[in-house]
C-alpha cells in the first residue's frame, strides 16, 4: 500500500527531484538498474544532474547522438539481464529510432514465445510551454499508446512521478514514461519511505458530481484550475489516468455513474489519440450512462506552431472551460 501523501515523513519536492529520487533509490536497490542517454552525466534536464558522481559513468552512460545505438544499449542489455532506463531527452527523438523502440520492443516478448522479459524504462521530456514548435513540443504518449506489448504512464505530480517511475523500473516489461516539461519545477508532497504507484491505477484528483474530466499531466493542472474557478457553478470530478496502458476503466466508469458527463483533455492531436480511444470505449461500454456526448479537448489537427501561437493553439484553461460548460449545458 502506498503511504499517505501527508504522512509525517513527507517532504515537498520538485517534480524533477522526485523523479531523481526514484532513479537513485532503484539504482541503490538493484545493481542491474542503470541509465543510458545523451548528456545525462551533465544533465540537460535536472533529473539526472549529479547522478554520475554517485553511480559513476558505468551506470550513468552517455552515448553519441546515435539514437539507435543508444536505445540498443538498453534493449540488448535488458536481454542480458540488466534493467536499463533510457532517457531520450526530448520525446520527439524517439522517432529517430522508432522501429526499435516501438514495434521491435513491443513485439519482442510475445512474438518470441514469451521466453525472457524485456525490462526497459523509456523516459522522455514532452509538452508545450517551451515554445520550440512541433518537433520539440509534441506529446509522445499517443504514439506509444497503440503499440501492443508496451506500457505507458505519465505522472502529473511529484508524488506520482516518483511512484510511477519506481513501478516502471520494477516492471518486467517495456514501460514508457513521458514527463511534461511544464511540470518540472512544480512542488508537492513526497513520502520518504519506499512506495510505488502501480501502473494501471487512475487517481481521482478532485471529487465532484456534475461532470467527469479525464486529464493528464500539465492538462490536469489546467483542469484543476478550471475546477477551482467553476466550483460555485459546476462540480467537476477530475480524474488523472496516470497510466494510459494499462488503463483504469473501472475508475472512469465509477465516476460516470455519478456524473453521466465526460470531457477528456489530452495534449495531443485528436486523430488517433488516447482521448479518442477512451471516448470510443466509453461509447461501447457505458453508452447508457451518458447524458451528453463525450467531448474532447485536444490540439487542432495542425503541427504545433511555435512563436506566439502555442498558448492559444494548445489545450488551455479557456478551452477546457468552454468544453465543460458545453457538456453541462
Amino acid at each position, binding site marked *: 500500500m502506498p503511504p499517505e501523501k501527508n504522512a509525517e515523513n513527507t517532504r515537498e519536492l520538485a517534480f524533477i527531484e522526485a523523479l531523481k529520487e526514484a532513479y537513485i533509490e532503484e539504482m541503490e536497490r538493484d545493481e542491474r538498474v542503470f541509465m543510458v542517454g545523451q548528456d545525462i552525466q551533465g544533465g540537460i534536464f535536472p533529473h539526472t544532474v549529479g547522478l554520475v558522481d554517485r553511480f559513476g559513468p558505468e551506470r550513468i552512460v552517455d552515448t*553519441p547522438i*546515435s539514437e*539507435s545505438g543508444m536505445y540498443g544499449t538498453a534493449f540488448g*542489455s535488458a*536481454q*542480458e539481464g540488466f534493467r536499463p532506463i533510457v532517457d531520450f531527452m526530448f520525446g520527439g527523438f524517439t522517432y529517430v529510432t522508432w*522501429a526499435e523502440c516501438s514495434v521491435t520492443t513491443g513485439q519482442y516478448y*510475445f*512474438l518470441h514465445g514469451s521466453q525472457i522479459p524485456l525490462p526497459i524504462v523509456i523516459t522522455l521530456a514532452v509538452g508545450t510551454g517551451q515554445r520550440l514548435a512541433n518537433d520539440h513540443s509534441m506529446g509522445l504518449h499517443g504514439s506509444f499508446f497503440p503499440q501492443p506489448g508496451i506500457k505507458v504512464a505519465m505522472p502529473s505530480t511529484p508524488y506520482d512521478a516518483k511512484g510511477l517511475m519506481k513501478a516502471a523500473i520494477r516492471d*518486467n516489461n517495456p514501460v514508457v514514461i513521458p514527463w511534461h516539461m511544464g511540470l518540472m519545477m512544480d512542488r508537492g508532497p513526497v513520502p520518504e519511505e519506499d512506495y510505488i504507484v502501480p501502473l494501471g491505477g487512475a487517481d481521482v484528483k478532485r471529487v465532484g458530481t456534475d461532470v467527469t474530466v479525464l486529464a493528464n499531466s500539465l492538462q490536469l493542472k489546467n483542469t484543476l484550475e478550471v475546477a477551482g474557478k467553476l466550483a460555485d457553478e459546476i462540480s467537476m470530478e477530475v480524474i488523472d489516468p496516470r497510466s494510459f496502458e494499462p488503463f483504469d476503466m473501472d475508475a472512469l466508469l465509477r465516476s460516470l455513474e455519478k456524473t453521466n458527463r465526460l470531457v477528456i483533455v489530452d495534449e495531443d492531436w485528436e486523430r488517433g489519440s488516447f482521448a479518442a480511444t477512451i471516448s470510443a470505449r466509453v461509447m461501447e461500454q457505458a453508452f447508457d450512462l451518458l447524458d451528453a456526448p463525450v467531448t474532447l479537448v485536444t490540439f487542432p489537427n495542425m503541427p504545433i506552431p511555435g512563436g506566439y501561437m502555442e498558448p492559444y493553439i494548445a489545450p488551455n484553461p479557456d478551452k477546457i472551460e468552454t468544453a465543460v460548460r458545453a457538456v453541462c449545458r
Partner: protein
Amino acid sequence: MSLSKTVKRELYEKLVLADRIDRMIYGRMMQGKLIGFYHPGEGGIAPGVAIGHHLTKDDIYTPHHRAHGIPGMLGKNVPVERYLAEHTGKETGCCKGRSSFHWSFPEYGIYMASGYIGFQFAPTVGWGWAAKRKGKGQIVWCSAGDGGYNQGRAHEAMLMAMNWKLPVVFCCENNGMAIHATVASMHPTEHISSLAKGYGMPAVIVDGQDVFAVAEVAKKAIRHVRAGKGPIFVETKTLRFREHDIGTPDLAGHMPRSEEELADLRRRDPVLVATERVLADGVLTQTQIDTIGEQADVRVAEIEQFADESTIARPSEQELMEAVYAP
C-alpha cells in the same frame, strides 16, 4: 593457427547437414509445407557454420538471415528441429509457433530475428556493453549481409562499439546481392569492410566459400575480441545460388541472372570446395564422406519428423492476451 582434424571433420559434417536442411526446407516451401517465406541459403551456408562453431553457448550471436540462420545455429549446436517446428506453426516451435520466422533461442545466446534488415546493429551495442560490464569473456558476433551494412544503424553500432572497445565482431556475409540489387551498384568501394577504416577498426577479408578458411579467420577474430582488444570486422565473400526468396524471380537489377552465370557460381559450391579439401588433406575418405551424407539425411528426416508430428499451435485469444506482458 590451423584447425585440428577433429574440428575440420565437425565443420564438414555441419556443412553437409546445413546444405541438406536448406534443400529440405526449399522443397517443403515449394510443397506449401511452410509458413510465410524462405530465403534459400544455397551457395552461402559456409560462413554461418564456421562462425557458429567457434562461439561458446554463452556468446551472443545474430546469425545472418539467409537460410534463416540455420547454418549458424548448427554451428552453435542449437536444436534446429525447434526452428522448423516454429516455421511450421507448431507448439514445439522455438517461439511456441507464434512467430512464423522470428526465431529466438535465448539459452543459446541467439536472442532474436526480426523482419527489419539491420535490426541486429542496435542491440549489438547493448549485448556488447553487457558482456564487457559482466567481464566474463563473453563476446558478440554480429552478422549481416552486404545489404544490411547499408543501414545507418550499422554506423551507429560500429561507432559506439569502437568508442567503448566492446567485444564485438562485425561480420558482413557479402554475397554480392541484396534481393535484386548488386553490391556493385549499392556500395561505392570494392569491399564492404572498407567501412571499418572510418572507425580505425581492423578488418579481414576471407573466402566465404571455404568453410575452413572462414573458421580460421573466425577463430582469430573471436580471440581478438575476447582478449579485450575491441571490435574487428570480418568480411566473407560468398554467393547466392538461388532467388532471394522463394517465389521472387532471380534478377540482377531487372535482368534475370543467366544460366551460365549461375553454373559458374556453382563451381564454388561450399560443399564441393570443402569435399575437395578434406579429400586432398586426408581429413576424410570418400567412404567417410558418404557416411556423413547418410547421417545428414537421417538427421534431416528426424528434424522433419519432429516438426510434422508436433501439434499445430492454436491457442485461444485469451491465452495469447495473457502472453503479451511478462509477469
